[in-house]
């Protein structure tokens, strides 16, 4: 019997190759195709300044999409990210204007976002409702709260220190980009290196199996929505920093962009699958697309047309390079 020891043991593959897999390479190829086309069509596209510009313009969507990716991986969806960002932004603005120090207002706002996410998560996990319906409901609820609290008017008079925080540059890179990069790294670590990350994949991949294995399914779902809420709040704060005002309609349509970024990046809306690197690339694809079409001065209707076509073609390229996988 012990002759089996002679068998060769395949060495475990490195985790890095796992997290930048073939799928991400496909997305990258899609991005490169888009970049190549625009670079040929307009000389302004490939300048350093414009590339930074694209990153900056993609950063808010990327931030929201990071959380969305986790929720999608865990088998859910979060349509309420925009209004969550709005209530958090308004809370932060109101606090700062009331004299609460910035270093207190920021974490409080992020906590509020996470709490909004927790409500979503609990309705899904304990209420047993479908994520789509829950977050469609809270989408209205949170937006209405923001509008009612502010009477529909933006909150102005954001302290300059707060704005400076999000408008400065770090070695020439806009701080929003740096912040989102750091957050992406954190989320990547959570997903790929911690038990929670495994739980997200497990609950989204096979909830039954996860339950049997003793994974705290409800807590895992709630955690995904809380992270999504927290990241939406941060995205809201970044935007307030840039705009200098907290508008109750802030975050309109963010959910669609975030879901699109995640899906372009390879997240499966059936759950259990998704990539942080892919999502970042997805957000940049969308940002580059908008930027390039504006630089080319494409008229709005044709921009819409081009957006549709380019998304489909990029996905088909991605799909073709990956083969039947």
């Amino acid at each position, binding site marked *: *019997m012990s*002759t*089996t*020891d*002679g*068998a*060769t*043991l*395949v060495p*475990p*593959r490195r*985790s890095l190759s796992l997290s930048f897999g073939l799928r991400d390479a496909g997305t990258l190829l899609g991005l490169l195709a888009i970049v190549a086309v625009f670079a040929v069509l307009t000389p302004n596209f490939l300048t350093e300044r414009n590339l930074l510009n694209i990153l900056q313009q993609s950063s808010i969507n990327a931030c929201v999409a990071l959380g969305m990716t986790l929720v999608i991986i865990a088998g859910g969806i979060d349509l309420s990210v925009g209004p969550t960002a709005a209530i958090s932004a308004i809370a932060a603005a109101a606090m700062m204007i009331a004299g609460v120090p910035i270093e207190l207002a920021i974490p409080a706002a992020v906590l509020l976002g996470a709490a909004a996410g927790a409500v979503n998560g609990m309705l899904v996990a304990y209420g047993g409702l479908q994520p789509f319906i829950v977050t469609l409901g809270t989408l209205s609820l949170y937006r209405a709260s923001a509008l009612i609290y502010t009477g529909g008017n933006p909150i102005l008079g954001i302290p300059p220190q707060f704005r400076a925080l999000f408008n400065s540059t770090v070695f020439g890179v806009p701080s929003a980009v740096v912040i989102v990069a750091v957050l992406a790294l954190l989320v990547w*670590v959570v997903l790929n*290196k*911690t*038990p929670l*990350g*495994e739980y997200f*994949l*497990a609950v989204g*991949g*096979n909830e*039954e*199996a*996860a*339950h*049997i*294995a*003793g*994974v*705290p399914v409800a807590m895992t779902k709630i955690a995904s929505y809380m992270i999504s809420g927290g990241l939406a709040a941060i995205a809201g704060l970044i935007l307030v920093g840039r705009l200098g005002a907290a508008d109750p309609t802030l975050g309109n349509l963010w959910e669609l962009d975030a879901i699109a970024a995640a899906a372009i990046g390879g997240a499966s809306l059936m759950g*259990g*699958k998704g990539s942080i690197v892919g999502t970042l690339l997805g957000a940049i694809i969308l940002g580059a697309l908008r930027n390039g079409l504006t630089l080319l001065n494409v008229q709005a209707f044709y921009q819409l047309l081009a957006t549709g076509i380019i998304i489909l073609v990029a996905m088909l390229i991605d799909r073709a390079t990956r083969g039947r996988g």
Partner: protein
Amino acid sequence: MNTSGDRLRLMDISKSFGPIQALDHVTMTVVPGEVHGLLGENGAGKSTLLRILSGAFKPSDGHVEVDGVRLTSTGPVAARRAGIAMIHQELQHVPELTVAQNMFLGHPLKTGGLFVARRAQENAAAEALRSLDPTIDPAAPIRTLKVAQRQIVEIARAVMEDAKIIAMDEPTSSLTPAEFERLAVLIHQLAAKGVSIIYVSHKMDEVFQVCQAATILRDGRKVDEVRLAETTEQEVVARMVGRELATAHHRGFATDEIMLDVRGLSRGTAVQDATFQLRKGEVLGISGLIGAGRTELLRLLAGVDRPDAGEIRVEGHSIPTGRPRVAIAAGLGLLPEERKRDGIVARRSIRSNIGLASMKRFSRFGFVRRRALAAESEKLMREMNLRPLMIERPIGQFSGGNQQKAIIGRWIAAGARILLFDEPTRGIDVGAKAEIYSLIERLAAEGRSAIVVSSELPEILRVADRVLVMREGRIAGTLERDQLSEEAIVALAVPQSTDDTPIPQSRREA
């Protein structure tokens, strides 16, 4: 405190699913170091009992005691804490996670108290897999593994947990005798260390080889508890099914007419240059070790996968490959190996699952003839003894064995003339097995042909008129009925070049 010395006591356990009473006041005890069999027909309630033990289900009534202490909280985590590990019948894995991640799911090893210690997990997983199947890569995503390998992972996971009690629900349903032997060794080692094991299997020879005692369930009730040394297989089976099973012998119905003519069928390294013929009324067995390419060959025949090369002729006509509908129209029907993934639509009724492949037959003027389909389904399922005989119930709510019966029914309803059975009796009880064998014979007698892939040598010997043996993707040889023996098959199946693969021992006739 623990005066009786019982390791585990299941006290008066009841469980009902809606109208179905799956368990009715079942009591069972196991002492340390004992390997205790749990026997019963499909749907008798074995899995339900074990799932209550492992915390996956809450009992409607009754409780569980470990070492004399009553478990107060339920749930998988509480069960694990109490020292209970379980091998599930329906393999429950997260496809995108690696082998090691699946093995440690729910209780990962950590470094720095925060991060998953992947390397350590992979090493521990490799260690646990070593004695069962060292070729499994702990870092590979589990979706890339085949069923048999996944089942081994499931076993290794339970064994690795250092549990006091291990519940094994049909751990060898996908395994070949060789792997069972390795498991048997492992079970002996565990028992020697004082671990209590509950062993569920429909393979009587296995039960008699590893168990000391057995509890027999019928329709959710405990009917007997036996010491296996003091009884015989026939007696046990009779207690299980409530009647004597007649032992039948092989009967052949093969004619000279060629039904299926396969030439040079190849796909990658999985199947290389498969060439063979199947005659009308013939039952062709295909044997081989795990990964020999049997499943892949059937998938090619059924049009599920597209071959790189080769030709398939049905009754002399070449058919286009790689399209299930074409294959089905030509009279082929595949009974897949992985029932849950490839076979059933869990939410749909038995009737719908049966009718899926024969919508043409069961529709008129564009409407489904529901009544006709229901009548046919009920007839087929009554013949196969579906339990409970409720054809409108979602198939997902049936026991594994009963699901299998419905999928067989699907192809019979579809009028398939060439049935491709991939492990047809996996997870099927002895009574139903006999029924399925006679069913296969009946189909042959009706002039249909069948290819039966099976890892159970007795099964192949029982049903096959002729046996193809596959080895590493190639057909290593063909054995006519008069040449058939376990030894002959094994001799062809095992790679000649290396002699370090253990030769499976001959097993008792079923």
